[in-house]
């Protein structure tokens, strides 16, 4: 397949880049990305990946757009209040790039559906709002040997890491297991600066684009942390943990599972 004149124009700023070129742009057009959560992180990630010409993007969320979301979830607009987030996000993505095939999945991820969901995609972005879901995504991706980007934001801080099978630690290596419900603050309790979602979600989109095009190095074996108050980024080296329950030498987790209490935490 070769690009039409219109496609060359749409993607010209990518194609000019030595690290991407026509070859990299073609890889993007053949790429399949699943974004779990059409919220703060998922919003910029989904828009940038659609705009970048990623061939197929799944966007999974069962929530509906709420007024308190619009301070940061820039993929939805005031007109979308009450609409399913996955559908509202898909509309915005198709509007920015009709060439991208968008698959809206109106569902929450759980142990029952996550295996089938991730199987269909090359890279998964975690844009969820709670720790149990982040562990579920980690386990499912490790078990299915799928690369994924983990991220979290709170107040004026954010962090992300990238897992690629066979290349460094998973999220569970470092964080082991979710804290009990309400033990650590969530955004709805502690607040979050809207633009933080833009920074970290965009970094997740960048990791996916770099993965497909082979440009640069990924955040494997590292946790990138960002503090907006001091404007400091730090890249903290993360070792692998041989005793990790899912990616270690003797794994005890062999299938994704849900943590109790996860369901009520998901509610907006």
């Amino acid at each position, binding site marked *: 397949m*070769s*690009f039409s*004149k219109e496609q*060359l*124009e749409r993607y*010209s*700023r990518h*194609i*000019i880049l*030595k690290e991407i*070129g*026509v*070859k990299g742009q073609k890889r993007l057009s053949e790429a399949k990305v699943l974004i779990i959560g059409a919220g703060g992180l998922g919003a910029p990630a989904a828009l940038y990946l659609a705009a970048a010409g990623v061939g197929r993007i799944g966007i999974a969320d069962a929530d509906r757009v709420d007024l308190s979301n619009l301070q940061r979830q820039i993929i939805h607009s005031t007109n979308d209040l009450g609409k399913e987030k996955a559908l509202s996000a898909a509309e915005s993505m198709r509007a920015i790039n009709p060439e991208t095939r968008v698959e809206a999945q109106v569902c929450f991820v759980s142990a029952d559906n996550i295996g089938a969901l991730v199987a269909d995609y090359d890279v998964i972005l975690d844009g969820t709002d709670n720790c149990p879901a982040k562990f579920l995504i980690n386990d499912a991706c490790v078990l299915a040997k799928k690369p994924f980007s983990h991220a979290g934001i709170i107040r004026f801080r954010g962090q992300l890491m990238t897992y690629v099978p066979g290349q460094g630690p998973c999220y569970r290596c470092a964080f082991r297991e979710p804290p009990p419900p309400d033990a650590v603050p969530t955004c709805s309790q502690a607040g979050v600066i809207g633009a933080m979602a833009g920074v970290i979600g965009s970094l997740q989109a960048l990791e996916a684009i770099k993965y497909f095009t082979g440009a640069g190095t990924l955040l494997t074996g590292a946790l990138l942390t960002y503090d907006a108050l001091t404007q400091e980024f730090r890249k903290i080296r993360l070792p692998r943990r041989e005793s990790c329950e899912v990616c270690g030498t003797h794994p005890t987790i062999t299938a994704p599972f849900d943590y109790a209490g996860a369901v009520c935490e998901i509610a907006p």
Partner: protein
Amino acid sequence: MEKHKAEFSIAATEDITDAVCPLTFVRAKAALEELEAGDVLALRMNDGEPVQNVPRSVKEEGHKILKLTDNADGTYTLFVRKTGE
């Protein structure tokens, strides 16, 4: 263009006289990526900005400029040999 055939055979031609910067270079780059290393691309472009910038950008990508000929109609043809990666 007959006489060039004696010097090198042209694998493909691309006319970018309908494009403006940076699409001139994007189209040239795309046309080159379709070719095999060693192939020669004939690029027809307008005088002015394209002829000033496209040859330089193509050279920066590592390809070899063989010849630039004035077509005496306000356009130039640039002959580029694609280098391997």
